[in-house]
Protein backbone atom coordinates (compact mmCIF):
# COMPACT_ATOMS: atom_id res chain seq x y z
CA UNK A 1 0.00 0.00 0.00
CA UNK A 2 1.48 3.30 -1.02
CA UNK A 3 0.68 5.20 2.16
CA UNK A 4 3.10 2.99 4.05
CA UNK A 5 5.92 5.02 2.44
CA UNK A 6 4.47 8.30 3.68
CA UNK A 7 4.25 6.90 7.20
CA UNK A 8 7.95 5.96 7.07
CA UNK A 9 9.36 9.18 5.58
CA UNK A 10 12.59 9.88 7.53
CA UNK A 11 12.63 13.60 6.63
CA UNK A 12 9.18 14.12 8.05
CA UNK A 13 10.12 12.04 11.10
CA UNK A 14 13.13 14.29 11.78
CA UNK A 15 11.00 17.40 11.43
CA UNK A 16 8.39 16.16 13.92
CA UNK A 17 11.17 15.03 16.28
CA UNK A 18 12.75 18.50 16.14
CA UNK A 19 9.40 20.01 17.11
CA UNK A 20 9.13 17.52 20.00
CA UNK A 21 12.55 18.70 21.18
CA UNK A 22 11.45 22.33 21.06
CA UNK A 23 8.16 21.66 22.85
CA UNK A 24 9.72 19.55 25.60
CA UNK A 25 12.35 22.26 26.24
CA UNK A 26 14.91 19.79 27.58
CA UNK A 27 12.55 18.41 30.21
CA UNK A 28 13.05 14.67 30.85
CA UNK A 29 9.80 12.93 29.95
CA UNK A 30 8.85 9.27 30.36
CA UNK A 31 6.20 8.11 27.93
CA UNK A 32 4.87 4.55 28.01
CA UNK A 33 3.81 2.74 24.89
CA UNK A 34 1.37 0.10 26.09
CA UNK A 35 1.13 -2.15 23.06
CA UNK A 36 3.66 -4.86 22.15
CA UNK A 37 3.20 -4.02 18.49
CA UNK A 38 4.32 -0.44 19.22
CA UNK A 39 7.38 -1.72 21.13
CA UNK A 40 8.31 -3.79 18.11
CA UNK A 41 7.96 -0.82 15.73
CA UNK A 42 9.96 1.44 18.05
CA UNK A 43 12.91 -0.93 18.12
CA UNK A 44 12.71 -2.06 14.51
CA UNK A 45 12.68 1.47 13.10
CA UNK A 46 15.02 2.97 15.71
CA UNK A 47 12.41 5.50 16.79
CA UNK A 48 14.22 6.17 20.06
CA UNK A 49 17.22 7.33 18.04
CA UNK A 50 15.01 9.78 16.12
CA UNK A 51 13.35 11.20 19.23
CA UNK A 52 15.30 13.77 21.29
CA UNK A 53 17.37 12.22 24.11
CA UNK A 54 15.17 13.68 26.87
CA UNK A 55 12.22 11.53 25.71
CA UNK A 56 12.38 8.08 27.31
CA UNK A 57 10.00 5.48 25.85
CA UNK A 58 8.97 3.02 28.56
CA UNK A 59 7.72 -0.34 27.34
CA UNK A 60 4.43 -1.42 28.82
CA UNK A 61 2.76 -4.80 29.35
CA UNK A 62 0.98 -4.90 26.02
CA UNK A 63 2.15 -8.34 24.99
CA UNK A 64 -0.63 -10.83 25.75
CA UNK A 65 1.83 -13.73 25.56
CA UNK A 66 4.21 -12.08 28.01
CA UNK A 67 1.67 -11.33 30.73
CA UNK A 68 0.39 -14.89 31.14
CA UNK A 69 1.78 -16.45 34.31
CA UNK A 70 3.45 -19.85 34.11
CA UNK A 71 0.63 -21.52 36.03
CA UNK A 72 -1.80 -20.83 33.17
CA UNK A 73 0.65 -22.37 30.68
CA UNK A 74 0.78 -25.45 32.93
CA UNK A 75 -3.04 -25.54 32.89
CA UNK A 76 -3.04 -25.36 29.08
CA UNK A 77 -0.52 -28.21 28.86
CA UNK A 78 -2.61 -30.26 31.31
CA UNK A 79 -5.64 -29.90 29.03
CA UNK A 80 -3.54 -30.68 25.93
CA UNK A 81 -2.32 -33.91 27.53
CA UNK A 82 -5.84 -35.21 28.22
CA UNK A 83 -7.01 -38.17 26.21
CA UNK A 84 -8.92 -37.48 23.03
CA UNK A 85 -8.13 -33.74 23.10
CA UNK A 86 -6.97 -31.78 20.08
CA UNK A 87 -5.45 -28.62 21.57
CA UNK A 88 -5.33 -25.65 19.22
CA UNK A 89 -3.31 -22.50 19.80
CA UNK A 90 -1.75 -19.45 18.17
CA UNK A 91 1.77 -20.35 17.17
CA UNK A 92 3.71 -18.23 19.59
CA UNK A 93 2.21 -19.88 22.66
CA UNK A 94 3.90 -23.13 21.59
CA UNK A 95 7.32 -22.09 22.90
CA UNK A 96 6.32 -20.31 26.09
CA UNK A 97 7.85 -22.19 29.03
CA UNK A 98 5.62 -23.53 31.77
CA UNK A 99 7.09 -24.99 34.96
CA UNK A 100 7.72 -28.34 33.26
CA UNK A 101 8.19 -27.44 29.62
CA UNK A 102 6.22 -25.83 26.81
CA UNK A 103 3.34 -26.85 24.57
CA UNK A 104 5.95 -27.69 21.95
CA UNK A 105 7.60 -30.10 24.41
CA UNK A 106 4.21 -31.64 25.16
CA UNK A 107 3.60 -32.03 21.43
CA UNK A 108 6.96 -33.78 21.04
CA UNK A 109 5.85 -36.15 23.80
CA UNK A 110 2.72 -37.08 21.89
CA UNK A 111 0.01 -34.53 22.78
CA UNK A 112 -2.12 -33.54 19.78
CA UNK A 113 -1.40 -29.80 19.66
CA UNK A 114 -2.08 -27.84 16.49
CA UNK A 115 -1.28 -24.33 15.42
CA UNK A 116 -4.18 -22.17 14.13
CA UNK A 117 -4.44 -18.60 12.85
CA UNK A 118 -7.95 -18.11 14.17
CA UNK A 119 -10.39 -19.71 16.63
CA UNK A 120 -12.64 -20.19 13.60
CA UNK A 121 -9.99 -22.61 12.30
CA UNK A 122 -10.24 -24.45 15.64
CA UNK A 123 -14.01 -24.68 15.19
CA UNK A 124 -13.41 -26.18 11.74
CA UNK A 125 -11.20 -28.81 13.35
CA UNK A 126 -14.06 -29.61 15.75
CA UNK A 127 -16.44 -30.01 12.79
CA UNK A 128 -13.93 -32.25 11.03
CA UNK A 129 -13.29 -34.49 14.06
CA UNK A 130 -16.67 -34.88 15.81
CA UNK A 131 -15.35 -37.69 18.04
CA UNK A 132 -12.52 -35.59 19.45
CA UNK A 133 -12.60 -32.80 22.02
CA UNK A 134 -11.17 -29.66 20.43
CA UNK A 135 -9.94 -26.93 22.74
CA UNK A 136 -8.84 -23.44 21.71
CA UNK A 137 -6.26 -21.55 23.81
CA UNK A 138 -7.68 -18.03 23.74
CA UNK A 139 -5.20 -15.25 24.51
CA UNK A 140 -5.01 -11.58 23.65
CA UNK A 141 -6.41 -8.21 24.56
CA UNK A 142 -9.63 -6.71 23.25
CA UNK A 143 -8.30 -6.90 19.68
CA UNK A 144 -8.47 -10.69 19.80
CA UNK A 145 -11.46 -11.24 22.09
CA UNK A 146 -13.96 -10.51 19.27
CA UNK A 147 -12.67 -13.47 17.26
CA UNK A 148 -13.20 -15.81 20.23
CA UNK A 149 -16.65 -14.28 20.81
CA UNK A 150 -17.75 -14.79 17.18
CA UNK A 151 -16.47 -18.39 17.29
CA UNK A 152 -18.42 -19.13 20.49
CA UNK A 153 -21.59 -17.67 18.97
CA UNK A 154 -21.13 -19.86 15.91
CA UNK A 155 -20.50 -22.96 18.04
CA UNK A 156 -23.69 -22.21 19.97
CA UNK A 157 -25.75 -21.52 16.83
CA UNK A 158 -24.58 -24.72 15.13
CA UNK A 159 -24.71 -26.85 18.28
CA UNK A 160 -21.05 -27.87 18.01
CA UNK A 161 -20.53 -29.43 21.43
CA UNK A 162 -17.06 -31.01 20.99
CA UNK A 163 -15.46 -27.55 21.05
CA UNK A 164 -14.39 -25.49 24.07
CA UNK A 165 -12.33 -22.40 24.85
CA UNK A 166 -9.60 -22.04 27.51
CA UNK A 167 -10.16 -18.33 28.00
CA UNK A 168 -7.22 -16.09 28.92
CA UNK A 169 -8.31 -12.83 27.34
CA UNK A 170 -7.13 -9.79 29.27
CA UNK A 171 -8.21 -6.15 29.28
CA UNK A 172 -5.91 -3.21 28.69
CA UNK A 173 -7.51 -0.58 30.94
CA UNK A 174 -7.00 -2.43 34.27
CA UNK A 175 -3.35 -3.01 33.31
CA UNK A 176 -2.80 0.70 32.69
CA UNK A 177 -4.54 1.49 35.98
CA UNK A 178 -2.31 -0.99 37.83
CA UNK A 179 0.76 0.67 36.35
CA UNK A 180 -0.49 4.11 37.38
CA UNK A 181 -1.15 2.77 40.89
CA UNK A 182 2.38 1.40 41.23
CA UNK A 183 4.44 3.45 43.72
CA UNK A 184 7.56 3.33 41.54
CA UNK A 185 5.97 4.75 38.40
CA UNK A 186 7.11 8.12 37.10
CA UNK A 187 5.26 8.28 33.81
CA UNK A 188 4.34 11.56 32.13
CA UNK A 189 2.06 10.20 29.40
CA UNK A 190 0.98 7.26 27.30
CA UNK A 191 0.91 6.17 23.67
CA UNK A 192 -2.25 4.07 23.54
CA UNK A 193 -2.90 0.80 21.66
CA UNK A 194 -4.40 1.58 18.26
CA UNK A 195 -6.22 -1.65 17.50
CA UNK A 196 -7.49 -2.33 21.01
CA UNK A 197 -9.00 1.17 20.87
CA UNK A 198 -10.52 0.43 17.48
CA UNK A 199 -12.62 -2.10 19.41
CA UNK A 200 -13.21 -0.42 22.80
CA UNK A 201 -13.31 3.25 21.72
CA UNK A 202 -11.85 6.26 23.53
CA UNK A 203 -14.20 6.59 26.49
CA UNK A 204 -12.66 3.86 28.74
CA UNK A 205 -9.39 5.83 28.85
CA UNK A 206 -11.02 8.98 30.26
CA UNK A 207 -9.95 8.33 33.86
CA UNK A 208 -6.26 8.45 32.83
CA UNK A 209 -6.61 12.08 31.76
CA UNK A 210 -9.29 13.29 34.15
CA UNK A 211 -8.33 11.55 37.39
CA UNK A 212 -4.61 10.85 36.91
CA UNK A 213 -3.87 13.92 34.78
CA UNK A 214 -1.74 12.05 32.26
CA UNK A 215 -2.16 12.61 28.51
CA UNK A 216 -2.85 9.53 26.39
CA UNK A 217 -2.82 9.47 22.59
CA UNK A 218 -3.95 6.43 20.56
CA UNK A 219 -1.45 5.64 17.82
CA UNK A 220 -1.23 3.63 14.64
CA UNK A 221 1.59 1.20 13.97
CA UNK A 222 3.73 2.93 11.39
CA UNK A 223 6.84 4.80 12.62
CA UNK A 224 5.35 8.23 11.90
CA UNK A 225 2.14 7.28 13.69
CA UNK A 226 4.13 6.72 16.87
CA UNK A 227 6.30 9.81 16.45
CA UNK A 228 3.23 11.95 15.82
CA UNK A 229 1.49 10.46 18.87
CA UNK A 230 4.54 11.31 21.01
CA UNK A 231 4.35 14.84 19.58
CA UNK A 232 0.69 15.08 20.62
CA UNK A 233 1.54 13.86 24.14
CA UNK A 234 4.41 16.33 24.51
CA UNK A 235 2.25 19.16 23.16
CA UNK A 236 -0.36 18.44 25.84
CA UNK A 237 2.33 18.38 28.53
CA UNK A 238 3.79 21.68 27.29
CA UNK A 239 0.32 23.26 27.46
CA UNK A 240 -0.41 21.81 30.89
CA UNK A 241 -3.27 19.71 29.53
CA UNK A 242 -4.22 16.07 30.00
CA UNK A 243 -6.70 14.61 27.52
CA UNK A 244 -7.51 11.45 25.59
CA UNK A 245 -6.63 12.09 21.94
CA UNK A 246 -6.60 10.03 18.78
CA UNK A 247 -3.72 10.10 16.31
CA UNK A 248 -5.03 7.01 14.49
CA UNK A 249 -8.06 8.75 13.01
CA UNK A 250 -7.95 6.74 9.78
CA UNK A 251 -8.96 3.66 11.76
CA UNK A 252 -10.13 4.46 15.30
CA UNK A 253 -13.65 5.77 15.78
CA UNK A 254 -14.35 7.39 19.17
CA UNK A 255 -17.22 5.00 19.87
CA UNK A 256 -15.18 1.88 18.98
CA UNK A 257 -16.69 -1.16 17.28
CA UNK A 258 -20.12 -1.63 18.86
CA UNK A 259 -20.76 -4.97 17.14
CA UNK A 260 -17.48 -6.36 18.47
CA UNK A 261 -18.22 -5.09 21.98
CA UNK A 262 -21.69 -6.62 21.82
CA UNK A 263 -20.28 -10.01 20.75
CA UNK A 264 -17.81 -9.92 23.65
CA UNK A 265 -20.53 -8.90 26.12
CA UNK A 266 -22.80 -11.74 24.96
CA UNK A 267 -20.14 -14.40 25.46
CA UNK A 268 -17.75 -13.21 28.17
CA UNK A 269 -17.70 -11.47 31.53
CA UNK A 270 -14.91 -10.13 33.72
CA UNK A 271 -13.26 -12.49 36.21
CA UNK A 272 -13.20 -11.18 39.79
CA UNK A 273 -9.40 -11.38 39.68
CA UNK A 274 -6.58 -12.62 37.44
CA UNK A 275 -2.85 -12.85 37.85
CA UNK A 276 -0.66 -10.93 35.40
CA UNK A 277 2.97 -11.78 35.14
CA UNK A 278 4.90 -8.90 36.64
CA UNK A 279 1.81 -7.00 37.82
CA UNK A 280 0.34 -9.47 40.27
CA UNK A 281 -3.38 -10.00 40.79
CA UNK A 282 -5.55 -7.33 39.18
CA UNK A 283 -9.32 -7.30 39.85
CA UNK A 284 -11.72 -7.39 36.89
CA UNK A 285 -8.87 -7.48 34.38
CA UNK A 286 -9.49 -10.70 32.47
CA UNK A 287 -12.38 -12.49 30.86
CA UNK A 288 -14.11 -15.78 31.42
CA UNK A 289 -17.05 -17.30 29.57
CA UNK A 290 -20.54 -16.27 30.66
CA UNK A 291 -22.68 -18.93 32.40
CA UNK A 292 -24.76 -19.33 29.20
CA UNK A 293 -21.58 -20.53 27.49
CA UNK A 294 -20.57 -22.96 30.25
CA UNK A 295 -20.86 -25.93 27.84
CA UNK A 296 -18.00 -24.41 25.82
CA UNK A 297 -15.80 -23.49 28.78
CA UNK A 298 -12.69 -25.69 28.87
CA UNK A 299 -12.05 -24.82 32.54
CA UNK A 300 -15.40 -26.39 33.44
CA UNK A 301 -15.09 -29.32 31.04
CA UNK A 302 -11.57 -30.32 32.10
CA UNK A 303 -9.80 -30.41 35.42
CA UNK A 304 -6.77 -28.14 35.50
CA UNK A 305 -4.12 -27.91 38.23
CA UNK A 306 -4.78 -24.19 38.78
CA UNK A 307 -1.51 -23.89 40.69
CA UNK A 308 0.20 -20.55 41.02
CA UNK A 309 3.78 -20.85 39.79
CA UNK A 310 6.37 -18.22 40.62
CA UNK A 311 8.72 -17.00 37.91
CA UNK A 312 12.26 -18.51 37.84
CA UNK A 313 14.48 -16.67 40.31
CA UNK A 314 16.68 -15.29 37.55
CA UNK A 315 13.73 -13.89 35.60
CA UNK A 316 13.11 -10.14 35.71
CA UNK A 317 10.24 -10.09 33.23
CA UNK A 318 7.99 -8.47 35.81
CA UNK A 319 10.24 -5.43 36.10
CA UNK A 320 10.53 -5.15 32.33
CA UNK A 321 6.76 -5.39 31.92
CA UNK A 322 6.18 -2.62 34.45
CA UNK A 323 8.74 -0.42 32.70
CA UNK A 324 11.00 -0.32 35.78
CA UNK A 325 14.01 -1.69 33.94
CA UNK A 326 15.01 -1.84 30.30
CA UNK A 327 15.65 -5.22 28.62
CA UNK A 328 19.42 -4.84 28.70
CA UNK A 329 19.31 -4.12 32.44
CA UNK A 330 17.94 -7.61 33.15
CA UNK A 331 20.71 -9.70 34.69
CA UNK A 332 20.16 -12.63 32.32
CA UNK A 333 19.45 -10.68 29.14
CA UNK A 334 21.55 -11.94 26.26
CA UNK A 335 23.41 -14.46 28.39
CA UNK A 336 21.19 -17.15 29.90
CA UNK A 337 18.09 -15.63 28.28
CA UNK A 338 18.07 -15.32 24.49
CA UNK A 339 15.41 -15.98 21.85
CA UNK A 340 16.89 -19.44 21.35
CA UNK A 341 16.97 -20.22 25.08
CA UNK A 342 14.30 -17.98 26.66
CA UNK A 343 13.80 -17.95 30.40
CA UNK A 344 10.83 -15.58 30.47
CA UNK A 345 8.04 -14.57 28.20
CA UNK A 346 9.46 -11.13 27.33
CA UNK A 347 12.03 -13.03 25.29
CA UNK A 348 9.78 -15.80 23.95
CA UNK A 349 7.28 -13.63 22.14
CA UNK A 350 8.61 -11.58 19.22
CA UNK A 351 6.45 -8.75 20.59
CA UNK A 352 8.06 -8.91 24.03
CA UNK A 353 10.32 -5.97 24.85
CA UNK A 354 13.36 -8.22 25.32
CA UNK A 355 12.95 -10.11 22.05
CA UNK A 356 12.30 -6.86 20.19
CA UNK A 357 15.42 -5.28 21.68
CA UNK A 358 17.52 -8.42 21.09
CA UNK A 359 16.46 -8.62 17.44
CA UNK A 360 16.59 -4.93 16.58
CA UNK A 361 17.39 -2.58 19.42
CA UNK A 362 20.94 -3.75 19.99
CA UNK A 363 21.80 -1.96 16.77
CA UNK A 364 20.39 1.29 18.11
CA UNK A 365 21.86 3.73 20.57
CA UNK A 366 19.05 3.08 23.04
CA UNK A 367 21.21 1.71 25.86
CA UNK A 368 23.87 4.40 25.42
CA UNK A 369 21.19 7.09 25.57
CA UNK A 370 19.82 5.52 28.72
CA UNK A 371 23.28 5.45 30.36
CA UNK A 372 23.68 9.11 29.44
CA UNK A 373 20.32 9.97 31.03
CA UNK A 374 21.25 8.10 34.24
CA UNK A 375 24.64 9.81 34.34
CA UNK A 376 23.12 13.23 33.77
CA UNK A 377 20.52 12.77 36.50
CA UNK A 378 23.28 11.60 38.92
CA UNK A 379 25.32 14.70 38.10
CA UNK A 380 22.26 16.93 38.63
CA UNK A 381 21.63 15.31 42.01
CA UNK A 382 25.20 15.99 43.13
CA UNK A 383 25.17 19.61 41.95
Amino acid at each position, binding site marked *: *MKYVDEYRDPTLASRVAADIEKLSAGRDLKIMEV*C*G*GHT*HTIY*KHGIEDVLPPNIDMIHGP*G*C*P*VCVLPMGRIDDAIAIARKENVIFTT*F*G*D*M*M*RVPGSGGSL*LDAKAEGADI*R*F*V*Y*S*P*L*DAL*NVARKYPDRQVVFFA*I*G*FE*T*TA*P*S*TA*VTLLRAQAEGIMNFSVFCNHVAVIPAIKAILDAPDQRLDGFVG*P*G*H*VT*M*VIGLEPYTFIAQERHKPIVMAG*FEPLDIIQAVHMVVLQISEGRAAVENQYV*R*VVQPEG*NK*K*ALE*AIARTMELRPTFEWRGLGFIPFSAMQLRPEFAPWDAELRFEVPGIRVADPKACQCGEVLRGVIKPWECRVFGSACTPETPIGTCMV*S*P*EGACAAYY*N*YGRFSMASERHQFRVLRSNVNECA
Partner: protein
Amino acid sequence: MKDIWQNQQIHAEQEDQKAQACELDEEGHCITCSDEAIAVTIVQVDPEHGRALVEVKRRREEIDITLIEPVVPGDIVLVHAGIAIGKI
Protein backbone atom coordinates in the same frame (compact mmCIF):
# COMPACT_ATOMS: atom_id res chain seq x y z
CA MET B 1 -17.78 -19.23 -5.18
CA LYS B 2 -18.01 -22.11 -2.71
CA ASP B 3 -15.59 -24.27 -4.78
CA ILE B 4 -12.97 -21.52 -4.83
CA TRP B 5 -13.16 -21.24 -1.07
CA GLN B 6 -12.97 -24.99 -0.56
CA ASN B 7 -9.80 -25.11 -2.63
CA GLN B 8 -8.36 -22.15 -0.72
CA GLN B 9 -9.19 -23.84 2.57
CA ILE B 10 -7.53 -27.14 1.55
CA HIS B 11 -4.42 -25.27 0.43
CA ALA B 12 -4.33 -23.27 3.67
CA GLU B 13 -4.68 -26.44 5.75
CA GLN B 14 -1.79 -28.05 3.90
CA GLU B 15 0.35 -24.97 4.54
CA ASP B 16 -0.62 -24.95 8.21
CA GLN B 17 0.43 -28.54 8.75
CA LYS B 18 3.96 -27.56 7.76
CA ALA B 19 4.10 -24.79 10.32
CA GLN B 20 5.48 -25.64 13.75
CA ALA B 21 5.38 -22.25 15.37
CA CYS B 22 4.42 -18.67 14.82
CA GLU B 23 4.64 -17.58 11.22
CA LEU B 24 6.56 -14.36 11.41
CA ASP B 25 6.14 -11.90 8.56
CA GLU B 26 9.13 -10.47 6.70
CA GLU B 27 9.56 -7.91 9.51
CA GLY B 28 9.88 -10.61 12.17
CA HIS B 29 6.46 -9.69 13.47
CA CYS B 30 3.86 -12.07 14.84
CA ILE B 31 0.61 -10.36 13.99
CA THR B 32 -1.58 -12.60 16.11
CA CYS B 33 0.56 -12.43 19.23
CA SER B 34 1.09 -8.67 18.93
CA ASP B 35 -2.64 -8.07 19.18
CA GLU B 36 -2.37 -6.03 16.00
CA ALA B 37 -4.72 -6.20 13.05
CA ILE B 38 -3.49 -6.26 9.46
CA ALA B 39 -4.94 -4.47 6.47
CA VAL B 40 -6.30 -6.74 3.71
CA THR B 41 -8.26 -6.14 0.51
CA ILE B 42 -11.71 -7.64 -0.01
CA VAL B 43 -11.85 -9.83 -3.12
CA GLN B 44 -15.27 -11.50 -2.86
CA VAL B 45 -18.15 -11.13 -0.40
CA ASP B 46 -20.67 -13.70 0.85
CA PRO B 47 -23.05 -11.57 2.94
CA GLU B 48 -25.43 -14.48 3.58
CA HIS B 49 -22.78 -16.36 5.57
CA GLY B 50 -21.01 -13.25 6.85
CA ARG B 51 -17.74 -14.16 5.14
CA ALA B 52 -15.40 -12.66 2.58
CA LEU B 53 -12.42 -13.76 0.56
CA VAL B 54 -9.49 -11.42 1.03
CA GLU B 55 -6.05 -11.00 -0.38
CA VAL B 56 -3.25 -10.90 2.20
CA LYS B 57 0.37 -10.91 1.07
CA ARG B 58 1.00 -14.16 -0.76
CA ARG B 59 -2.33 -15.81 -0.40
CA ARG B 60 -6.09 -15.57 -0.24
CA GLU B 61 -7.95 -16.27 2.96
CA GLU B 62 -11.51 -16.48 4.16
CA ILE B 63 -12.46 -14.10 6.95
CA ASP B 64 -15.53 -13.33 9.03
CA ILE B 65 -17.12 -9.93 8.34
CA THR B 66 -20.04 -10.00 10.79
CA LEU B 67 -18.52 -7.37 13.09
CA ILE B 68 -18.10 -4.59 10.52
CA GLU B 69 -20.37 -2.57 8.26
CA PRO B 70 -21.15 -4.06 4.81
CA VAL B 71 -18.16 -4.18 2.46
CA VAL B 72 -17.62 -4.55 -1.26
CA PRO B 73 -14.68 -5.89 -3.30
CA GLY B 74 -11.84 -3.39 -3.19
CA ASP B 75 -12.53 -2.25 0.37
CA ILE B 76 -9.63 -2.42 2.81
CA VAL B 77 -10.44 -3.92 6.20
CA LEU B 78 -8.42 -4.65 9.32
CA VAL B 79 -8.33 -8.31 10.25
CA HIS B 80 -7.16 -10.03 13.38
CA ALA B 81 -7.33 -13.79 14.05
CA GLY B 82 -9.60 -14.38 11.08
CA ILE B 83 -12.17 -11.67 11.90
CA ALA B 84 -12.52 -8.20 10.39
CA ILE B 85 -12.74 -5.70 13.25
CA GLY B 86 -12.32 -2.41 11.44
CA LYS B 87 -12.29 -0.68 8.11
CA ILE B 88 -9.92 1.91 6.66
